[in-house]
């Protein structure tokens, strides 16, 4: 019964979770929240993680009721993500792994999301939509790889939402996407925006420039409300995501769809994806904010799968990497 501790800090969340054979024993997390109108920068984010990583580690052990000697392996996010925050968290993972004499496991962040989604929902072989502030990919498993069927060709969908929130000075607490979702519920009018699906891929930067350009003009002319803009942006972006997910499901013949990543806890996205799945006779799997949003348990869970299949990461190979594609990982734990 291996017990794995997982360290995550690739973006503005620092989380440490402990998993034992599919059971999440603890999963504390802190979020670096910036003032309205501001994004999070690597140096500031690393300082945030530095200031609370050891407290979060203590909490993870205490909540799980475990001592360091009970841990069998130490997993950490190797990439992709922001360099400075990744290094900060990796350094603590390497230090405790050596102090405790446990093997290290360098985990691909995207694979962490997929494995956590599979664990929590019980989806067996889903077509995965991975949507967050840094990533937008449609993924399906085949022959020991999570293969990317479609992805963004510029910015991530969550980045598009976050940057739109900055234009309207929407609060980043608890997250810009959550606040956009609440405002969108009060939207009455659909403002037409560019719709940019390109084959299996999507593009969001042109939509962002367009809405940045028209937002203040339309608002000051009284042509729409901020709530209308939130609603219109969500409807447009999510329709694009549903379209490419459906096309991937048609390719793979899959009858399961799984949404993971921070944007995946948006209930309107889940609703739209649910309608598409129902029409195809497929099942939708999604998780709530505890496991959709970056957390330590997802890194522990992917690490647990790696460890169980015999993988470990040597200390000298434990360097972090800002770029690390989902399909670079050999999935040794699935048939």
């Amino acid at each position, binding site marked *: 019964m291996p017990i794995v501790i997982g360290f995550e800090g690739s973006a503005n969340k620092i989380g440490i979770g402990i998993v034992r054979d599919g059971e999440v024993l603890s999963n504390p997390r802190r979020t670096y929240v910036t003032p309205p109108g501001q994004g999070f920068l690597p140096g500031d984010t690393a300082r945030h993680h530095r200031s609370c990583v050891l407290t979060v580690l203590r909490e993870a052990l205490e909540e799980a009721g475990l001592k360091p000697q009970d841990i069998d392996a130490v997993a950490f996010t190797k990439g992709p993500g922001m360099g400075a925050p990744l*290094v900060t968290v990796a*350094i603590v993972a390497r230090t405790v792994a050596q102090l405790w004499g446990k093997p290290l496991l360098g985990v691909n962040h995207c694979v962490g999301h997929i494995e956590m989604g599979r664990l929590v929902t019980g989806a067996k072989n889903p077509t995965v939509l991975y949507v967050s502030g840094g990533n937008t990919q449609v993924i399906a498993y085949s022959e020991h790889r999570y293969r990317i069927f479609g992805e963004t060709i510029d910015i991530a969908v969550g980045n598009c939402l976050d940057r739109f929130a900055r234009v309207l000075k929407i609060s980043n607490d608890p997250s810009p996407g959550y606040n956009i979702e609440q405002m969108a519920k009060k939207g009455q009018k659909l403002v037409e925006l560019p719709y940019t699906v390109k084959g299996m891929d999507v593009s969001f930067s042109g939509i962002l420039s367009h809405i940045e350009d028209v937002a203040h003009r339309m608002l000051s002319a009284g042509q729409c409300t901020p709530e209308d803009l939130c609603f219109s942006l969500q409807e447009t972006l999510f329709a694009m995501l549903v379209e490419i997910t459906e096309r991937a499901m048609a390719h793979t013949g899959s009858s399961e769809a799984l949404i993971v990543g921070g944007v995946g806890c948006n209930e309107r996205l889940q609703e739209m994806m649910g309608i598409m799945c129902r029409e195809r006779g497929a099942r939708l799997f999604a998780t709530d904010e505890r496991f959709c949003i970056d957390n330590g348990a997802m890194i522990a869970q992917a690490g647990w799968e790696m460890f169980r299949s015999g993988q470990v990461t040597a200390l000298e190979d434990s360097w972090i990497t800002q770029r690390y594609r989902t399909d670079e990982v050999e999935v040794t734990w699935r048939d």
Partner: protein
Amino acid sequence: MAVPGSGLAFELKIPFPSSTLAKIALGSLAPDPEPRKGGITKELNVTEDTLHVRWRAEEARILRVSISSFLEHLSLVVETMDLFGPPMA
């Protein structure tokens, strides 16, 4: 590996309570290469209970950034050792 035409060098010797802890610090701090492609090199090694770090760089600015980031990482390693050590046999 010397950087061609480099004029700047910096050296740190950090004593630890034991050679085990010095080696752990080396293991935690050595894996990540310098973020920039050229203009700076950093070598780390351990002799007995001391961690040695040697920098060579072309520009003072690059050298300063690398040293200050190293010191932050070092203090994180030491704090982690204090809170989650001592090393298990």
